Each structure stands twice: as structure tokens, then as C-alpha cells.
């Protein structure tokens, strides 16, 4: 892929008063991929999205979308993007069709084309039946889908999804996941923020862990887990083989845990450790009853990277940016 990345952000700083919402955030997103920005409340996820979607101007640093600078060519950037914010920004008194068509017109489509595309996306988002009802009667999940539909009517190159499934029921969450995957199949790039590790794991090609205004780690889900270096091997042998097995494992690591014929020990070299172990056991004629390789969960990775309790609550350094306009 020689194509230039669709999003490039370098060393973005942005403070709201004393709160450093972004503190040197850098980011690079390849076309056609899903980038998951993972972090707790107040880590800077929304602020970063707002900078990339031209809503906020950073104090320093530069960022571009599709090669257009978000500061000096903000209008060109806005033609490329779709934004679905944290809360479904839907007018209760408008119907689904009116909402989507209105956004279409504001993307510059004429009314007929806007209505045609509105019908398309509503169909695709499973809202065709509700299209002519007012959004006031929609469920939470439907409102989210409507909001998402509206952000896609302009056929953006990249879609910014700010916590797309926060506060909706599990069924609707699966719906949104399916829709995001379909979008990517169609070639749309997606940048999504989430507090849910599972969501990043499910959807993102690349995950960036954001903490205190900067990306502290980045990689695929597997890479992040590997980076933690805490893979473990789980081995079960016959009772008669325990002694022989002990002699083998002692050569690997001194942190072996043994309980009733079951061994559990770290595998610092990942799969490499596992293969070496199998060979060594074979050499001494031990045939395992069970052998498995365990990776740390993304939760553990997250905890190790941010020192935060978990990915769902407020971290220790939460400083919600006041919704204020500076200067």
C-alpha cells in the first residue's frame, strides 16, 4: 500500500484552561481501515476527534485529512468526513427521512438526490419502515442508527464515530458493529473511539491506546497483547510424567506453577516458547494430555498501559473538559 494515509496528526496539543486535553497526540490512519481509539473518559478521545473534524483548533501541532490541513483547509476537510458524535444529534420533531435528507442537502446535494440517498441509507440501516415517523418515537438504538445514517448520506471518505455504542442495548450494539464492518467493506475508513476493549478488539484493525492526551501505545489487538509479554503456557501431563516435565520446564523459566499435574508458566517468546517446549518434551518422551497457550486479555493490556482500574469507568486522571468556548 503506497497510498498516503488518510489521517495524519502530529504532536497535537490543546488545553482548556489548565486542563491539557491533548498533550502531544500523534496518529496515522491508513485508508480503508478501522482505527480504534481506546481510552477512559477524559483521556482525550473526543477532543482528538473534534480537532480532526475541524470543530476545535489545536494550540499547536498539525493534522490533515485526505491531504487537506484541518486548520487552513478546513472546508475541504469537511467535504471528506462524516461525524457521528457521542450523543445522537437528532431532532425529535423531524422524521428519519427528513433528518437524513436535510444533512444530505447541507452536504450540497440537491433535494431530489438528497431524498434518494436518504431512502438508500435508511433502508440499509434498517429504518425504512420508520422513515416517515418522527424520531421522538425512536428507541435509543434507532436514534443511533439514524444519526449514523445521517453522517453517511454525504458518502464521506472517512467516518468519525465517537463512542458509537455507549449507552445502547447489546442487540443494537451488534447492529452497529455489523454496519461498521459493512462500511469498511465498501471502502470507507473509520476512526472510532470507545471505552470498551471488546469493541476495539472486535472492530479495529489498529488500536491506539490514548491516555492523558497522547497515544501511549499502538498496534493490532494481537501486537498489544504480545507487547505485554505475559503470554502463558498451560500444560497438563500424566502423573507419572510430572518429574520429567519439571526437569524440562525448569530450563525454561523459574516461575512455574504446578498444581495437580497442571503446569502454568510464562512464555516470553510467545509462540516460539510453545514450540520449543513441545520439542523439549518430545525429547524426553513426555506426551502432554493438554497443551494450551493463553494470551492476556485486552483488559490486562489496558491496565498495564494506563494504570487505570478498567476501561469502563472514570480513570484517576479524569478532567472532563468544560463545554466552554475559549477566549
Amino acid at each position, binding site marked *: 500500500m503506497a497510498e498516503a494515509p488518510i489521517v495524519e496528526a502530529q504532536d497535537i496539543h490543546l488545553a482548556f484552561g489548565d486542563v491539557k486535553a491533548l498533550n502531544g497526540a500523534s496518529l496515522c490512519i491508513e485508508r480503508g481501515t478501522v482505527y480504534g481509539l481506546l481510552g477512559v473518559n477524559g483521556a482525550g478521545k473526543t477532543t482528538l476527534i473534534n480537532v480532526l473534524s475541524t470543530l*476545535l483548533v489545536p494550540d499547536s501541532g498539525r493534522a490533515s485529512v485526505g491531504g487537506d490541513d484541518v486548520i487552513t483547509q478546513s472546508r475541504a476537510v469537511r467535504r471528506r*468526513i462524516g461525524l457521528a458524535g457521542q450523543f445522537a444529534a437528532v431532532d425529535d420533531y423531524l422524521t428519519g427521512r427528513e433528518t437524513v435528507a436535510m444533512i444530505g442537502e447541507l452536504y450540497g446535494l440537491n433535494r431530489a438526490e438528497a431524498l434518494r440517498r436518504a431512502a438508500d441509507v435508511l433502508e440499509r440501516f434498517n429504518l425504512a419502515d420508520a422513515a416517515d415517523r418522527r424520531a421522538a418515537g425512536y428507541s435509543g438504538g434507532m436514534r443511533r442508527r439514524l444519526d449514523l445514517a445521517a453522517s453517511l448520506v454525504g458518502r464521506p471518505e472517512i467516518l468519525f464515530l465517537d463512542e458509537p455504542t455507549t449507552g445502547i442495548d447489546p442487540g443494537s450494539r451488534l447492529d452497529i458493529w455489523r454496519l461498521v464492518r459493512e462500511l469498511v467493506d465498501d471502502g470507507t475508513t473509520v476512526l472510532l473511539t470507545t471505552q470498551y476493549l471488546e469493541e476495539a478488539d472486535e472492530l479495529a484493525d489498529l488500536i491506539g491506546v490514548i491516555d492523558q492526551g497522547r497515544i501511549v501505545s499502538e498496534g493490532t489487538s494481537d501486537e498489544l497483547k504480545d507487547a505485554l509479554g505475559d503470554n502463558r503456557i498451560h500444560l497438563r501431563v500424566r502423573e507419572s510424567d510430572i518429574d520429567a516435565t519439571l526437569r524440562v520446564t525448569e530450563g525454561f523459566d523459574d516461575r512455574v506453577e504446578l498444581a495437580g499435574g497442571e503446569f502454568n508458566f510464562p512464555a516470553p517468546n510467545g509462540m516460539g516458547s510453545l514450540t520449543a517446549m513441545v520439542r523439549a518434551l518430545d525429547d524426553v518422551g513426555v506426551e502432554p494430555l493438554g497443551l494450551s497457550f493463553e494470551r492476556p486479555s485486552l483488559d490486562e493490556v489496558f491496565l498495564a498501559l494506563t494504570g487505570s482500574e478498567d476501561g469502563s469507568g472514570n480513570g484517576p486522571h479524569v478532567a472532563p473538559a468544560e463545554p466552554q468556548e475559549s477566549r
Partner: protein
Amino acid sequence: MTATEVRPADSPPAEVHPGRLGRDTWVMARRNLLRYVRLPQLLAFSVIQPIMFLLLFTYVFGGAIGAAIPPAAGGKYINFLLPGLLVQISLFGATQTAIGLTDDLARGVVDRFRSLPMARSAVLTGRTLADLLRNAVVLALMFGVAFAIGFRYQTSLLGFLAGVGIVLLFAYAMSWVMAAIGLKVVNPEATQTAVFLIVFPFVFASAVFVPVQTMPSWLQPFAEHQPVTAMVQAARALMLGSGALEPGQTVSGVVVVAIVWCVAITAVAAPLAVRIYRRSTRT
């Protein structure tokens, strides 16, 4: 403050095709007007209050104030009151611009609009246009009641309509002021308080309800020369004739002063509101 040189993004007002601004303004105005069409109770509420004012002031104060009103009012307080009340009501109506915008801000709707490749100021031009039309409807309903309880213009239909025109022009100008306030204050409840703190002194320390000469001398200079009084004098002159004015004033004179006020207010407030809007965001 580091690197202020990369902050100018709020300045270059990306040149917008004039046709685009008109079109987007209408899309936004239609959105805002649909709210009143779909939720008619909102319009009902915004009409009930003015009509209540009209009835209360006419029947409660009418007797007491009657003696102080100029003879051009034809001896009826309501004739004196209505032009002033129209100004008051249009000003109250203009506060809705601030309320509506802060509501859009709070719900993230403004963020959505600001992320679109639309004419950015259309969110404001569409809002102020819709509020102007709503104000016109409210005023029309008020006339109905006013005529029913005895209001009669003392000039001509043309004069009456010209007076209404001045009032609506003022309402439009003040909508921009309210837009700037709402976008600056952001919080809906705080905005509600802020706009009325500003509106009340202007409405009551003015010629809306009583002639300025009945006020204490320290208050008179303010009451005499502030924009609400200028509007009221122009509307009264156009609806009741030159007899409603103080000696030395002419109908054309007060009308020109009123129009200059409206143009000046808009010329200052509109660019200011657009400037603040460019930097407004929910978070």
C-alpha cells in the same frame, strides 16, 4: 499560550458561494420552522404570554395611566400601549434565538452542522430568519386580539404596516444580539437568565408602557435615548401620527433614528455572532 500562530483558523471565513448561503439558510430555516409546525403547542405558548400582557396592561394599568398619554392616542390607553407592546414582544421573541441555539449546542447538533461542508453562517442566518417569521406570526395574532378589544390605528393602514415593519426589523437585529449571547454563554439555563437580565431594563425603562416624562429625572436620559424607546417612538409615530411625539420630533426623524439603530445593531452583532459560532463546540 504556545504557538498562537496556528490559531487563526477561526478567521479565514472560507468564501462561500452566495447561492450556497441562501440555500443552506433556507434548509436551516425550514428545519427550525418545522418545529413550530409539528409542535404547535410551542407557538401557542409563545402567543399566550403576549396576549396576557396585552390584556393585563390594558385593563389593569389603562385607567391609571390614561391621563398621562398623549392626545394622539385618541383617549385610549391601548392605542398608546400596542406599538410599545409590539416592540416588547418582538424583543422577548428574539430571546428565543439564544435559547434555541444553546439547545442545539447542548444536544451536539451544532457540532454536527459544524462538521458539514455547508455555509457555516447558515446555521445563524437560518435561525434568525425562522425566528423572524415566528415573531411575525405572533405579532399578527396579537393584532387580532388588540383590534378586538378596541385598538385602532390613527394614521393609515400603510402607516400601521410600516410601524409593524420597524418592529420586525428590530426583532431581527436583536435576534443577532441574542445569538451572540447564547453562543457565548452556552449553558441553556444561564442563557435564559442572561438574556432577560439584559432585556428587562431596556423594556421597562423605556417608552413602552408609560411616557418617559413620568420617570425620575436621572432615568430619563437613558430611557429617552435607548433603542427600545427609539423603536417605540417610530412605531407610535407611524401608527398614531406626529401627535404621539414630543415637541421637536418629526415622524420621519424618529423613523430614521429607529432604522439606523437596527442597521447598526445588526452590523455589530451579526459578524460577532458568526465569529463566536465558528469556535463553538459542545466539548
